Each structure stands twice: as structure tokens, then as C-alpha cells.
């Protein structure tokens, strides 16, 4: 399998603070890559560099064969990157259906006149988009809350809706920022199943930040470990678990 994403020598600074220092790693097409590390290790910053929220001072990101120093989030979305956020970023004023529908906005090509009057291309488009949304809703088993305003939903379900919004865009690569944070065991199990199924059935490459070691070791093919903005481990789950630097970072070192 070829590499769909190559992060090369990326350094990101905020003023004098180095959030990420000279990090490189590759993500193979079709794999689940977990990025782990203690709090403040630079995981979210890394994800934000990949989809263009932050501009790194040094380094490049090669995605789908195109090497870029920077990209803006909209172009990233057009290029087939979809993501979720650490602190759920749903559109609070909308219901579940509308939220997921926004994920289809790149598929809406008809003009506002056609859409407003529901004529021409707009009709067929609306049908196709609605079908895609319903498919995702069914897959994530959230049929019963279709019309519920997202602000009324419990945390776990909001995370699921956010995954739905990313998924409905038919992405090539999915960036998930702590998809299981704050969930109970059962919700975590459900979410793990969804992520695995998305990856195995639809073949979508997934880069995921996660804290739960059990989950990470279970479902990922490849693990990248960051600590204080530096990469300290990179390999299969078992390799990473045996890596002394990683053990030190997580358990501490006696001096």
C-alpha cells in the first residue's frame, strides 16, 4: 500500500512555544493510524496542521501525492479530508439531520435559484444528498434522533453525529480528534465498531487521536507516539508497546 499522507519535518510554533518539533511520519492508504501521547504532546496541533487550521513554520505535508507547505481547511475538505474536533464542533442551532446535511455541501452544485424553487438539478441533488445522509444515519444507528436539535443530545451521541457529518462527505481520509473522550465503556465499544467498520468496509484511511490505550491497541494498525512535541515512537501497536521511550513517557522514569 502506498502512503496517502506524509508528514515531513513539521515544526509548529506559537510565539516562543514549540508545539511540534521536527515531526515526520507516514500514513498508509487504508490503515487506521493512532496518534497518542500525554496531554500537551502536540497531538491536536498535529491534526490541525494536517487539515490546515495551523500553518507550520517548517516542514511539509504531502497528501494524495501533492506536497504542500500549507492548505486551508476548505481546500482540505475539497481534497477529501474530513474531520471531527476534540471539543465537539457541531452546529448547535440545527438538528441532527441538518448537521449531517452540511457535510454534503460540497455535493450541492445547483444554483440558489434552482434550490429555492426546487427545480432542475436541485431536485435530483436533494434526493441523492438526502439518501446519503439517511445511509449514514442508519449506519450510526441514530434514526430515532434524526430531528432532535443537537444541543439536546448527550455527549456520546453528539460525538456520533459529528462522525456522521464527516463520513457523509465521502472522504478519502478521516481525521478523528479523540472520538471516544468522555465516553463510557459501552459507548466506546460502539464507537470502536463504527470506526473499524468505516475503515474495513468503506476502506477510508483513518488518523485518530485517542487516549484509551486499550482501544488504540485493539483497533489501530499503526501507532505514532508524541511527547512534548517530539515523536518518540512509530510502529505497530506491539512494537510501540515494547518501546522503552514510550513506557517512560507514560509511566515516568526514575532518576
Amino acid at each position, binding site marked *: 500500500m502506498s502512503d496517502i499522507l506524509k508528514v515531513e519535518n513539521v515544526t509548529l510554533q506559537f510565539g516562543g512555544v514549540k508545539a511540534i518539533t521536527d515531526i515526520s511520519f507516514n500514513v498508509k492508504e487504508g490503515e487506521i493510524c493512532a496518534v497518542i501521547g500525554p496531554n500537551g504532546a502536540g497531538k491536536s496541533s498535529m491534526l490541525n496542521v494536517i487539515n490546515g487550521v495551523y500553518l507550520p513554520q517548517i516542514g511539509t505535508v504531502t497528501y494524495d501525492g501533492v506536497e504542500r507547505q500549507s492548505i486551508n481547511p*476548505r481546500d482540505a475538505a475539497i481534497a477529501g479530508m474530513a474531520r471531527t474536533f476534540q471539543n465537539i464542533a457541531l452546529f448547535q442551532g440545527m438538528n441532527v439531520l441538518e448537521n449531517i446535511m*452540511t457535510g454534503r455541501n460540497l455535493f450541492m452544485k445547483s444554483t440558489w435559484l434552482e434550490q429555492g424553487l426546487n427545480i432542475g438539478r436541485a431536485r435530483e441533488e436533494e434526493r441523492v444528498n438526502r439518501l446519503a445522509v439517511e445511509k449514514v444515519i442508519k449506519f450510526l444507528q441514530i434514526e430515532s434522533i434524526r430531528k432532535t436539535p443537537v444541543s439536546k443530545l448527550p455527549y456520546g451521541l453528539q460525538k456520533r453525529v459529528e462522525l456522521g457529518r464527516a463520513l457523509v462527505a465521502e472522504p478519502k481520509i478521516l481525521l478523528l480528534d479523540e472520538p471516544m473522550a468522555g465516553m463510557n465503556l459501552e459507548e466506546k465499544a460502539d464507537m470502536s465498531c463504527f470506526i473499524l467498520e468505516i475503515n474495513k468496509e468503506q476502506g477510508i484511511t483513518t488518523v485518530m487521536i485517542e487516549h484509551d490505550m486499550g482501544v488504540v491497541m485493539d483497533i489501530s494498525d499503526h501507532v505514532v507516539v508524541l511527547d512534548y512535541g517530539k515523536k518518540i515512537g512509530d510502529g505497530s501497536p506491539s512494537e510501540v508497546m515494547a518501546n522503552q521511550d514510550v513506557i517512560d513517557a507514560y509511566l515516568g522514569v526514575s532518576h
Partner: protein
Amino acid sequence: MDWVYLIEVLVGGLMSGVMYSLVAIGFVLIYKSSGIFNFAQGTMLLFASLTFVKMTENGIDFWTSLFIAAGIMVIFGVVTERYVIRPLANQDLLALFMATVGLATFQEGFSQFIWDSDVHGLQMSKFLDIGLLDPAPIFMSDHVPWLDILIPKFDIFASLVAGSLIVVLAFFFQKTKTGLSLRAVSDDHMAAMAVGIPLQTVWAVVWAVTGIIALVAGLLWAERVSVSFTLIEAVMKALPVILIGGLTSIPGAIVGGLVIGVGEKLGEIYLADVFGGQGIELWFAYFMALMFLVFRPQGMFGEKLIERV
């Protein structure tokens, strides 16, 4: 109580209310999409109607002038987004607000610079042969036997125009991709960009649409109070409307406008004695807004901010 008179007052109130709503929607659109309270709303009205009037004074016919003025407002909106709003994106909201204050000052000066600062009368009946533009009132009893009330014809015209524009806008922002994008942008800029919504395009559309609203509202107001700098003050009446309706809600702006329109007319007629005589229409709207601020600060439809501790 004289019921016929009451109906007359109510109808009059609703009609001026529609005009307030129209101006208020301009504020709401920009606030929703970018969190900015647009101080330049009033000068946009002035600039738009002045542009229109100067063109008709130079012998250009009604529809061409309207079309050109609308075009200029759209260009103005797009330029504002590109050179005022975009460079300040993600800055402190106060900086953005101050930018619109600057924009207002610029626009006021610019209007005087390219046009002039005279008071211009606007009489649309000179250009359009529509019976409703006749200043004389309609006796409703001529049409509906049991309804013996008087309504100024122009009020009917103005509320028809304003009402249809509001309906078109509601449709536009409810049924189209742009509408969905606007709502997404108003909730979360970052997430909107991550799903591929072009933030800048949405802003530009909103500013352009606001420009067109300003033109229509400006002309309707100008017909009553003439095209001059007093138009800016007409916009002040939209402030109580958005306080009542909430800055984030288009239905709120509509209902708020109607509430203010009816409220101030009813106040003028039935409460004048309580508040010391005629003329309370001038400030009663602000009094109503004040009451709302005390008892329901988020407005009728505004979002209540609840924070989890």
C-alpha cells in the same frame, strides 16, 4: 371602546412594523454570519437611496436606476467583505465593530463626496404608475363594506414590498445551500470550514444581500422622510426591534418589528395620557426595549446563553 379605530391603529402599526423588520433583518444577517454588530447599517440605507435618487435626478428611468443602485450595493458589499471584514477575521469582535463604525463614517463622507449633502425629495409616483403610490388614503369601506377604516395607500405599498422581500429572503435562507451554509457559519466558523463551506463567500453574499435590503428599506423610508441624513436616524428604530427579537433570529426580527410597530402606535393612542401627552411614539419603542432588557435580555427568540459549570 371604538373597535374600528382600534383596528385602524393596529393595521397602521403592523404596516410600519414590517418596515422596521426589514431594517432589522439587515442587522441580524450580518450578526448571524460573523458576530458583528454592523454600525454602518444606517449609512448603507442613506448611500443606497442617495445613489438611486441622484440617478433619477439625472434623467435615468426608475428601473435602470434601481438596477444600478442594487448593483453598486452588491459591489460595495463584496468589497467590504474583502477589504474590511476578511483582514480582520478572527480578531477581537470589538475590532470588527470599530471597523463598521469606521465604515459608517467613510460611507457618510463618501456619499457627500460623490453625490451631495442636500435633502432630496423622493416621489416614486413620478416614475411608477401604480395607484398605491398615491399619497391619498384608501377608505376600506369602499372595498370591504363592514370595515370602515382609513389606510394610507403608500403604507399598503410599502408593507407589500417589504413583506415580499422578507418572504423571498426567508425562502433563500431556508431552502438553499447558501442558507444552510449561513446557519452553519453562524454557529461555528471552524467546523464550517472543515466541512468545506467557503466562509468568505458566505460573508460576501450576506453583505451583498444586506446592501440590497438597505436599498429597498432606504427607498421606502425616503418616500416618507426624504433622502437626507435623517435616514440614518430611521435605522435607530431597528435597534429596539433587534433587542426584542434577538440579534440571532430572522423570525425574531420580523415579529420584533411588528411588536414595536403595533406597540408604539397603541402606546401613542392609549397610553399618551399616562406618559404625559402626545408624541410618545418617538421614544416608546425604546421604552419597550428597555422593559425587555430587564425581564428577558435574550429577546423573544434569541439564544439564551447557558453555561455548564
